[in-house]
């Protein structure tokens, strides 16, 4: 049981070059896999292929195997794929239907497309509102949400189809720090609470350090680096691959280079400060957002 890419190669319709050049990737239920890499290395394409949108919805040619719980996505209709693997894009506003007047109805949009019974739809919407901790948004107008809130509603709308896997393409890139924190917190507990397997593309390696179990780094359509998140995020090759290492890794390198590598108290301070932030997850639902850095012990 997993979302699996095996030797996946993909080229867009009307082009002659494989953007993905043999990708092997596995996302197990309840696991969070981070995907990093320079721009135009194929990250967004992996999202389209893994979620079944490519080629079913946008065409192009897929070779190799992409399967969700053992079923190949080739030949899967887009609405079937959507119920197995959800996908969230960068821009919060273009993902909302724009035809609904409340967040509740917006989230019900997907389940309604499936023709589900009203009781089932209401149950799903309430479940997802509760899971993401956004019940308070239910009566609001989707057009009047902040960027972070809109992105959460877009996420909720996808989750309402009850997919076993979720693909997130830079979900916080267009958000301000407040929105980033809001979405980061909602995502952090999601895999553990719901057993959803998550593939997340992200430039912000801090976010990956906080939530990913494993991380893979792409380079021109191939996986150049993969393994447990702490190892990959501390790998010295990260920068060459166009990926900014997390702040703590960078700081350790800078201190080492300056000959300060042996100061125990300095490294303890880094561990302490890094553990204190960025604040992603771990806060009980309903608690007021803890703002600011931790007070020094």
């Amino acid at each position, binding site marked *: 049981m997993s979302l699996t890419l095996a030797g996946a190669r993909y080229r867009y319709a009307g082009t002659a070059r494989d953007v993905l050049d043999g990708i092997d990737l596995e996302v197990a239920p309840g696991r969070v896999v981070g995907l990093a*890499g*320079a*721009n*135009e290395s194929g990250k967004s394409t992996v999202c389209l292929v893994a979620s079944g949108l490519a080629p079913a919805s946008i065409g192009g040619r897929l070779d190799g195997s992409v399967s969700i719980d053992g079923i190949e996505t080739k030949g899967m209709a887009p609405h079937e794929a959507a119920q197995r693997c959800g996908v969230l894009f960068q821009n919060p506003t273009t993902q909302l239907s724009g035809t609904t007047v409340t967040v509740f109805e917006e989230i019900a949009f997907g389940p309604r497309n499936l023709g589900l019974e009203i009781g089932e739809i209401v149950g799903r919407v309430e479940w997802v509102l509760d899971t993401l901790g956004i019940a308070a948004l239910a009566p609001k107008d989707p057009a009047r949400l*902040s*960027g972070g809130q809109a992105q959460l509603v877009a996420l909720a709308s996808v989750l309402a189809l009850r997919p076993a896997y979720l693909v997130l393409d*830079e979900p916080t*890139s*267009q958000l*301000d*720090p*407040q*929105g*980033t*924190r809001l979405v980061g917190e909602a995502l952090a507990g999601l895999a553990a609470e719901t057993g959803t397997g998550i593939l997340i593309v992200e*430039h912000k390696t801090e976010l990956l350090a906080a939530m990913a179990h494993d991380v893979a780094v792409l380079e021109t359509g191939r996986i150049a680096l993969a393994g447990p998140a702490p190892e990959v995020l501390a790998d010295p090759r990260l*920068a060459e691959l*166009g*990926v*900014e290492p997390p*702040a*703590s890794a*960078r*700081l350790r390198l*800078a*201190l080492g280079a*300056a000959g*300060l590598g042996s*100061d125990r*108290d*300095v490294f303890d*301070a*880094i561990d*302490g*400060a*890094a553990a*204190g*932030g*960025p*604040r992603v997850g771990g806060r009980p639902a309903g608690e007021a*957002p803890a*703002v*600011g*850095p931790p007070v*020094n012990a």
Partner: protein
Amino acid sequence: MSIPIAAESVAFVYPDGTRALDGIDLHVAEGERVAIVGQNGSGKSTLVRQLNGLLRPTEGRVLVDGRDAAQLHVAQLAARVGLAFQNPDRQIFAGRVRAEVAFGPRNLGRSGDAVDRAVDEALDAVGLSGTADANPYDLGYSRRKLLAIASILAMQTPVVILDEPTTGQDARGVARVRAIIERLSTEGRTVITISHDMRFVAETARRVVVMREGRILLDGTPGEVFGEANWPALASTYLEPTLPARVGARLGLDGTATEAALVEALQARRG
């Protein structure tokens, strides 16, 4: 080729009644490197639109090179204050990269070699020299964004404002933007950057202005703004100090907003 720019007691109210700016006093000296940070809706974008005349203050005044901006047209201000917007797709229209970059300087009345040289220089600065004849829409988002920045650089304005230049950029793109800002700065030009990325801000700006609800909340060097005394104020608008600042505070050092500053402070302490 630099000029000072200032907002004096500027307030701005949108037609729908939203008070986006309230009592803004900001004096930016010639050649300064300033970053403006704050949440969406805090007034950052509204403020920079006052500086190039796209919006005019409801109260107070804006001074560009000592002259009241109210007496200058947007086109005149555009020759002094270049503003690269956040979304490149709201400006790119030309069929060739080169033509897109030439649009600004031509509008300013330049022609011939002067334009060619400015375009070449700007494309070189953003690393797009190799794609000068490409169609802009064949470039990915991050390169379109650099193209939009180049189209402002080519106008060779004494003041350059960059709104969220690092959004969607990878590590190389961010390094590129940083290099552009440093180069502008060594040329003595004034650079104002809006950004959500605190590390980028701490490393590129000499002065950080924090905005909240249309007002200036904090204004100082990165070391000062991210110093421990300001953490509650930063937290009140969901901003976090950089990691070196947090580490420095734990070690009893203040003003260590960047890795370099922290290393320096530690070396100094060691003696």
